[in-house]
């Protein structure tokens, strides 16, 4: 018997897996299919084009809103990294906005830990009459493009929509106020639908040790995308008496009414003794 075939046979037997008890899966070789190659000729949308479309999409979104009414809730929670987070302050406002720059804010509730109902709030948030929602698109406005670097992080197929995730960061090494972030863009309308912001440096080191996380969410109100929530978690550089170090700051936007034709009288300064004009769209 030639020795080479014997050695090969021995090697084959040695390499074969030892039989184990249980079912054996046969190799399926009767069902085969082939998909013909498809040459994609459509050019891939470049990042620059996406950014252009986002700028136009955001401008379009804004241009379609002529007046806006919503309830804004400003909330501060203290000691969020401790055992017992505690609501420190909550104020609720009904906001009326109308183009070009009309604004009316009606306080509905002011609550502050250890203070009477209706006492003046410790935290004031100034609302702007603009409807551009700069907190969402500040890095995607045409005049901001030079100041940021952008990159496509990923794409998600959601139903019949493609959602682009685009990361951005400020180019400047000296600008500590502008955050970096990640946005989710609905490419049906090229509108930003969600944003996560990251402050690599504290904007106010002497007071704030840092901002751990900031999230901006949008929601649909009818046909339009509008703000839903802005939330931020931060930590003070030094503990503040009766407040602590860590805190959450949130603004909720609810009960939207858009393009209802708010009366100009709603924004007029009240004359002494004259009844104030009601909102055409009613209350909340």
């Amino acid at each position, binding site marked *: 018997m030639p020795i080479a075939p014997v050695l090969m046979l021995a090697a084959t037997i040695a390499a074969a897996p030892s039989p184990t008890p249980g079912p054996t899966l046969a190799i399926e070789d009767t069902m085969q299919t082939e998909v013909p190659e498809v040459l994609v000729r459509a050019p891939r949308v470049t990042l620059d084009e996406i950014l252009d479309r986002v700028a*136009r999409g*955001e*401008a379009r979104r*804004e*241009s*379609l809103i002529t007046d806006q009414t919503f*309830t804004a809730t400003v*909330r501060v*929670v203290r000691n*969020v990294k401790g055992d017992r987070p505690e609501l420190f302050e909550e104020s*609720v406002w*009904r906001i009326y906005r109308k183009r070009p*720059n009309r604004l009316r804010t*009606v306080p*509905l*509730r002011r609550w502050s830990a250890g203070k009477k109902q209706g006492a003046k709030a410790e*935290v*004031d948030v100034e609302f*702007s009459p*603009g409807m*551009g929602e*700069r*907190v969402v698109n500040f890095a995607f406005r045409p005049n901001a493009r030079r100041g940021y670097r952008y990159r496509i992080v990923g794409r998600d197929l*959601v139903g019949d*929509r493609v959602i682009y995730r685009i990361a951005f960061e400020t*180019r*400047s*090494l*000296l600008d*500590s*106020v502008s*955050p970096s972030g990640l946005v*989710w863009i609905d*490419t*049906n*309308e090229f509108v930003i639908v*969600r944003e996560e912001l990251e402050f*690599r440096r*504290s*904007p106010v*080191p*002497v*007071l*704030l040790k*840092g901002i751990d*996380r900031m*999230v901006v*969410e949008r929601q649909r109100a009818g046909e339009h995308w509008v703000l839903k929530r*802005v*939330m931020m*978690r*931060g930590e003070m*550089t030094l503990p503040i008496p009766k*407040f602590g170090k860590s805190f*959450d700051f*949130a603004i909720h936007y609810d009960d939207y009414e858009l393009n209802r034709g708010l009366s100009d009288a709603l924004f007029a300064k*009240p004359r002494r003794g004259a*009844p*104030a004009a009601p909102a055409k769209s009613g*209350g909340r």
Partner: protein
Amino acid sequence: MTRRLDWVLVVFAIAGAILATAPVSASSSVARDLGPMAQASPPDTTLDDFLEDYADSTERYFGMAAAPLDTAGLDSALAFGLAHPDAAGDRSGRFALGFGPWLAFNRVDGPLYGATAKVGQPRLLGELQGRLGYAVGPNDWMGGGEYTKLWGFRGSDATWLFNASAGRFTGVMDRDRADRIWASLRAFVAGTDNQRYLRRDGFWARLEYETSWWRLGTGYRDELESPLEVTTTWNLRKKAPSVVDNLPAALGRAREAMWYGTVRLPLIHGGWATAEHRSSGSAINSDFDYRRTRAAVGAEVPIAGVVSLVPQFEYGRLGGELVPQAAFYLGGSRSLQTVESSSRGGTGEAFGRLDLIGAPELFRFTNVLGIPPNSVQAGLFGALGAIWGPDPYGGPTIPGVDWPEREGWLGEVGISILLRPGLPDPAGFIHFDWAWPIGPDARERGFSVYYARPLFLVRPIVR
């Protein structure tokens, strides 16, 4: 707002600035220009579910802050608020009051004790600020009022500013590098305030228009300018003041018209150019006859995300009569630091500085020292400067007409540590600069502590 929690206001004012919303000046043509991919689409529950997944995780992270609003009682509060706008206080702020101290120290006024008060807000009816103080050195009262009005809401693409002031104040001879707080501290602690001072009695006003790309302004002033004598030479460290005299200002009524502008440079990242021109003459019944022009450019050029190159340059010329309070000066913290502050003057000035500033991530060790992380940066710099023309101090005329002669240039190199407190200006740094002279002249090494933005020769538009 209670004093106890003023800091909360500061923090959330910053948050408010971040959250400020503003419109884009969009028209309906924008919608047509968006292209076929950007048509309004019907609500998609799949997308809503997709976003809801993220929202759920956000709620778990933020907990109580993300909880839904309890709406009990809000309807009746809204009905009351709409019917009683003043009672509800929804127009508060129009007459907001504020008070504060006014403290200063320099060798012409000595200690100045006073107070400031202000009412209103610039974006509403305007802000009116008054200040009154007593200068112990000359036994003189000083003060006046200032009104500021802004048109255009916060974050808007264009704003108008009107600003006017009237009263008696102490001014600084070097108009381009006036420093109040740090000069007072230096004078009080160690007597190392080298600024030259004069008295100004009268009024000024300016009107300014600003977009995110450019700013244009014009102004006028009518002030009696008079010299001041040194009255105070003491300081905490009981050292002899670094400057014991004061350059006398030319006495006279200065009526001056001013135009200025700033523009973002289109092809250079972080690039800005600024120019201003002031004119005073008999045509507007001024006692002085001069034309003062200054221009500056600067930029921030990030390199590989590790360092930033910050070049900046300024050029100034004074034509007509040499008035010390209109002249150009060289030396000091935001100039050549190996030259004593404002010690060299003339009718022409050229100054350039190049900074190489490292990213704050390179200095994480500062956390160990108790300084908030990423708030310290370090850099290298080089600077060149020259002054020429007749000397306001009475020295010989330095050769040069529109440009200095070659031997008129002075140079220096140095290192800097930049500490960013975030207040009062989020973009401002406390600079600790060590500078060494270049060249054969007998200047000494300089050390300066000052507060400024890295681009201090131009005034960028911040929105």
